[in-house]
């Protein structure tokens, strides 16, 4: 699964930045086409939901998606063989 912010809904309140235990959301710096500074994602594949939602068949954590007042956070299915940046931690 892939974490996405729906920029047609996000109003840039940055509540997700405040709540994510992994710090996946970072305050953005650039205005989007709606004149809103939406947060940017920092290595979203670290989110438990991206990794395990399909396996467990239910929402895990999900705090960002519950607190988002604008219903802008979602997980979508990845297309097969989507390129990934893999980070190896020693």
């Amino acid at each position, binding site marked *: 699964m892939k974490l996405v912010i729906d920029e047609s*809904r996000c109003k840039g*309140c*940055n509540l997700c930045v405040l709540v994510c235990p992994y710090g996946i959301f970072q305050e953005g710096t650039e205005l989007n086409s709606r004149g809103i500074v939406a947060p940017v994602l920092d290595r979203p594949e670290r989110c438990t939901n991206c990794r395990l939602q399909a396996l467990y068949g239910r929402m895990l954590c999900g705090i960002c998606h519950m607190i*988002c*007042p604008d219903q*802008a956070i979602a997980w979508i299915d990845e297309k097969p063989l989507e390129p990934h940046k893999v980070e190896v931690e020693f």
Partner: protein
Amino acid sequence: MIAPDWFREDRLPHIYCTGCGNGTVINCTLGAVEEMGWKREETVFVSGIGCSSRAPGYILTDSLHTTHGRALAFATGVKMARPDLNVVVFTGDGDLAAIGGNHFIHACRRNVDMTVVCMNNHIYGMTGGQGSPTTPPGAISTTTPYGASEPAFDLAELAVAAGANYVARWTSYHVKELTKAVAAGMQTPGLAFIEVRTQCPTNYGRHNKLRRVSDMIEHLRSHAMLVEKRDRLVQEGKPVPDDIFTVGELVRRNRPAMGVKS
């Protein structure tokens, strides 16, 4: 998004300001509705007037957007005519406790079987930030430019005293707890009242040195104290800070109720 089957996606994004807590409360309430497994055609959302009261407009069920303060009166009517329906009321502190104060205590007294979710942002949001019966003493609003001088209502305690079967209070920061509380309220026959302290950065935060959404959330988080902790402090004879409000389940009981599905 939470509960995609329940949102009127064509109406989104909603009218709420950036960082307004009302959207979070809709998420949590619909999360609880999903947990309950209710059907859309058996559920009615009722509201009065205010920012908070616009919530049913974003939900894909039949709803009543009624006159200011009268949401509970209309909801009582719905429940009396059709006890088989699940009734959820969205209301604001002004709607519920100022103009609708009398309906509030009597709905609790009658213990009508419905779930009332009050988004308490401490002011009248929609009309520009006037003081409401829940404006904390000292807080600045457009009608209390030198700080509110009146004591505020504690809505949850009021509901307990008036007789509601389930009463809880959380904030729009405590999303998991809030969802659980709303679901517990929906399961309890009789009136369930859930007060949610929400942030209104536009009309409350801006005047009270809490301009940023994160400041407002931090303010809510740091002033919330679990009822259990408050009770323990009282028991031990330790001082309870007077700027806190209690959160948690305040009451769950079994008084006779009206309009319960048979």
